[in-house]
C-alpha cells in the first residue's frame, strides 16, 4: 500500500481517478458475522461487499482508492493486495486514530484526494446499488459546481433526511431531517462526488458531512442532486440481507451481468427464481431452492433440503430434509438433518446445529454447537 502519485494521461485529468470509501469501525451491527470477518469482506451475493464497490469504481476509471478505516485487519490487507494487482490500482488504508465522523476522513486523506484538480467519489461502504458512476461523473462535470449527491426515492421519507431541490433544477436547496410533513421523497443515498476544493471546508477533526458540510455547500448553491435509478439499499444489518421482497437477488441479477460466473442459476432445483449458486457449491438434485437464495463457494446442500430467502456462506453444509428461511448460515457451519431454521437466524462462523432442532430467530456466535431447540429469538453466546 503506497501513496504514490500516479502519472495520468492528460485526457483523464478532467475525469476522475480517486475515490474514498467510508468503511469505519468494526461493523458491530453485522455481528455475529463480523466477529470472524471484517465487515467490508462479508459476502453480499457471493462477493465481498467492498469488492462490488471497487469493481464498479474501476469500471468508471478510478485508479486510486482510499479506505477510511479505524482499524486495519491483516486479512483485509491481504485480500485487497490481490485486488490491487488484479485491477492495477492503488488501495490505501487511511487509518483514523480517533473516529472522525463522515467528513473528517476526507481531510485525513487530503494528500491523495487533493493531489490534482479532478473530482473524486466518496462512498459509504454499507450502501449497495447499481453504482452508475460514469453517469454520475458526467452529471457532476456538466454542472461544474463543487459537489453532487446521489439521491434515491423511498416510500416513507419520514425516517430519513430528505433532500429538497430548488424547483425545476437539480440544485439542492436544503436538507430536512425526518420530516413530519411531506417535503419530498428523495433521500441521500450515501454516494457523493466532490471537487478537491471541498477539502478547504473540512478540518481534521470529527465532523459530520451531512450535518456540517453539506448545508454550507448548499448555502453557496454549489451542491446538486443526482437521481439514482434502480435499487438501492443499506446493508448494515443481517436482516438487510434478507428482508424485502425484491432483495437481495434482483441485486444479484444486476451483479451477474458484471461477473458471468455469478449469474443466477436456472437449474431444476430452483423454485420461484432468484437463486445464485457458486459453481463450486454442491446441490443435491432433490433439494429445492428459492426464491431469493444465495449459496456460497464450497457449500453443500443435502437431499430434500428446502431453502428460501436465505444466504448460505462458503463451505457451510445444509444436511438432508432441513428447512431454512429468512436466515444467514455462516461460513463452515453445519445445519443438521430435519432442522427448521427461520426468522432472521444468523449463524456465525463454524456453528453446528444438531439434527431435528427448531431454531427461531437465533443469533449464534462463532464455533457454537446447538443441541436443543431455540424456540424464541435470542443471542447464543
Amino acid at each position, binding site marked *: 500500500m503506497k501513496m504514490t502519485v500516479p502519472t495520468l494521461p492528460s485526457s483523464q485529468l478532467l475525469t476522475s481517478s480517486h475515490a474514498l470509501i467510508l468503511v469505519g469501525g468494526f461493523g458491530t451491527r453485522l455481528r455475529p458475522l463480523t466477529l470472524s470477518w471484517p465487515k467490508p469482506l462479508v459476502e453480499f451475493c457471493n462477493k465481498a461487499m467492498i469488492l462490488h464497490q471497487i469493481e464498479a469504481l474501476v469500471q468508471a476509471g478510478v485508479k486510486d482508492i482510499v479506505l477510511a478505516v479505524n482499524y486495519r485487519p491483516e486479512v483485509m490487507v491481504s485480500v485487497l493486495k490481490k485486488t490491487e494487482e488484479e485491477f492495477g490500482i492503488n488501495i490505501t488504508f487511511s487509518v483514523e486514530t480517533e473516529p472522525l465522523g463522515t467528513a473528517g476522513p476526507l481531510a485525513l486523506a487530503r494528500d491523495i484526494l487533493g493531489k490534482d484538480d479532478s473530482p473524486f467519489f466518496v462512498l459509504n461502504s454499507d450502501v449497495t446499488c447499481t453504482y452508475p458512476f460514469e453517469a454520475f461523473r458526467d452529471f457532476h462535470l456538466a454542472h461544474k459546481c463543487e459537489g453532487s449527491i446521489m439521491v434515491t426515492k423511498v416510500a416513507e421519507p419520514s425516517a430519513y433526511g430528505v433532500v429538497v431541490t430548488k424547483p425545476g433544477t437539480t440544485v439542492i436547496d436544503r436538507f430536512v431531517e425526518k420530516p413530519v410533513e411531506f417535503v419530498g421523497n428523495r433521500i441521500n443515498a450515501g454516494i457523493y462526488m466532490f471537487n478537491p476544493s471541498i477539502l478547504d471546508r473540512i478540518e481534521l477533526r470529527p465532523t459530520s458531512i451531512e450535518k456540517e458540510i453539506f448545508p454550507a455547500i448548499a448555502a453557496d448553491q454549489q451542491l446538486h442532486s443526482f437521481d439514482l435509478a434502480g435499487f438501492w439499499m443499506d446493508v448494515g444489518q443481517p436482516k438487510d440481507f434478507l428482508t424485502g421482497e425484491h432483495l437481495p437477488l434482483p441485486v444479484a441479477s444486476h451483479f451477474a451481468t458484471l461477473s458471468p460466473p455469478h449469474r443466477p442459476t436456472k437449474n431444476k432445483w430452483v423454485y420461484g427464481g432468484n437463486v445464485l449458486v457458486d459453481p463450486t457449491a454442491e446441490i443435491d438434485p432433490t433439494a429445492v431452492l428459492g426464491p431469493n437464495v444465495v449459496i456460497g463457494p464450497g457449500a453443500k446442500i443435502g*437431499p*430434500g433440503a*428446502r431453502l428460501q430467502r436465505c444466504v448460505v456462506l462458503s463451505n457451510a453444509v445444509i444436511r438432508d*430434509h432441513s428447512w431454512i428461511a429468512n436466515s444467514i448460515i455462516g461460513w463452515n457451519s453445519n445445519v443438521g438433518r430435519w432442522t*427448521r431454521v427461520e426468522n432472521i437466524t444468523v449463524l456465525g462462523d463454524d456453528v453446528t446445529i444438531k439434527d431435528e432442532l427448531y431454531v427461531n430467530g437465533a443469533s449464534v456466535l462463532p464455533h457454537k454447537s446447538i443441541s436443543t431447540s431455540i424456540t424464541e429469538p435470542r443471542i447464543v453466546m
Partner: protein
Amino acid sequence: MSTAVTKGVILVGGPSKGTRMRPLSLDCAKPLLPIAGKPMVWHPLAALAKVPGLTEILIIGFYEDSVMSGFIKDAKREFPNIGISYLREYRPLGTAGGFTTVIRDSILRPPVPQNIFICNIDICSSWPLTEMMELHGKHRGVGTILGVNVKKETATNYGCIVSDPSSLVLHYVEKPESWISNMVNGGVYLFDKSLFDEIKIAMDDKAARAAEDPLLQLQSDEILQLEQDVIVPLAAAKKMYVYETNDFWRQIKTAASAVTASRLYLNRFKTIAPELLASSSAVIIPPSYIDPSAIIDPTAKIGPNVAIGPGVRIGEGVRVKDAIVMEGSTIERHACVLNSIVGNNCQVGPWARVDGEPEPEQDSKGKISVTVLATEVTLAPETLVRSCIVLPNKSLSKNSANQVLL
C-alpha cells in the same frame, strides 16, 4: 392346591369423562385411543389375561355398547380362553357404584371368584398383578392396593398411603391438603369377594348420613366412590394392604400423557412382547410400533418411541420421533413430526413441522407441551405447528405456536 378363581374388572368411564383427553376424545372413545399401537383398554386387559386362574374380564363403563363392541370382538379372538364382556352402566355411578345390582351379580356369577382385580383405565403401568396376588395371598385383609411412588410436589394430587413394614395400610387420604407420603394409590386393586359386603356397609352408612344431612339426600344413594367410601374405611379398619412397585407408572389423563404412556409401553414391549415391535433397520429405530397396513417410504426415518396406526402413509425423507400417528393419516415428503400426536385421517404437507416439547413431569399451568392434531386436520406445505392443540377438521396454512386452534 388349585389356583383360586380370579376375575378382572376394568373401569373405563364414559363420554362425559375424559374431557382432558380432548381433542382426541372428541372423535374416539378414550378407552380406544391407541397407545403404543394398542387401544388404551388393551393394556390392562392383556395384563389381566396373563394372571393365573383368571377366568373372566368385565369392562364396565357408560359408553354405548356399539362403541365397545368392535374391541370386545377383537379381544375375545386374541384371548380365547377368557370370558370378556362389556357391561354398560346407564349413568355415572361413581368408581364403586358400578358394583351394585346387575354388575355385582355378573361378577359373582359362577365360577364364583375368590379374588377380583379392579383396574382403572387411565393409568399406564407395568401391571405387577401376579406380585399383587402373591402379597394378597399372604395377608388376611380384604384388599391389596397398588402403591406407587411419585414426586413429593405432586403427591397431594393422588390418594396418599402410609403403610407399615408388613405392607398394612395405616392411613389413606384421598388428595390431602398437605403432604403425607410419596406413596400413592396406583389405581389397581385386588379384593377378596367380601368386598361386596364392605360396599353394602358403605352404602348403608352413606344412606344413614344422608338421612341426617338434607344436602346429601339430593344425591343418589347409589353414587359411591371406591376411594372415599370404601378404601378409606377399610384402611381405618386395618383391612387394606399395599403392594409397592418402583416400576414405571403414569396417569393417562391428558392427550400429552398419551405420548409418554406410548413410550413407556413400547419400551416394555421390548421385553414382554418384542413381536409387536417393528424390527430395527436403517430407517426404523426401536422401539416403534408400525401397523402392517401402514406404508413407510424407505427414505423416511422412524423412531424411537413412535406408534403408527393402520393405513398411515409416510412419504420420502420424513422424520417421525416420539409421536403417535393415528389411522389413515398421511405425512408427506420431508415433513418432521416430533413430540406430537397426529389424529385420524390428518394430512401433513411437505416440509411441514409438527413439533412439541416432551410432556413435563409436573402440570405446567395451561402451557401446551405436546402438539395434538385432532381428526382430519390438514397442514399446508412448510407450515410449522409447535406446542399447539388443533381441533378437528382444521386446515392450517400459517405457522402457529403455543395455542389452541379452535
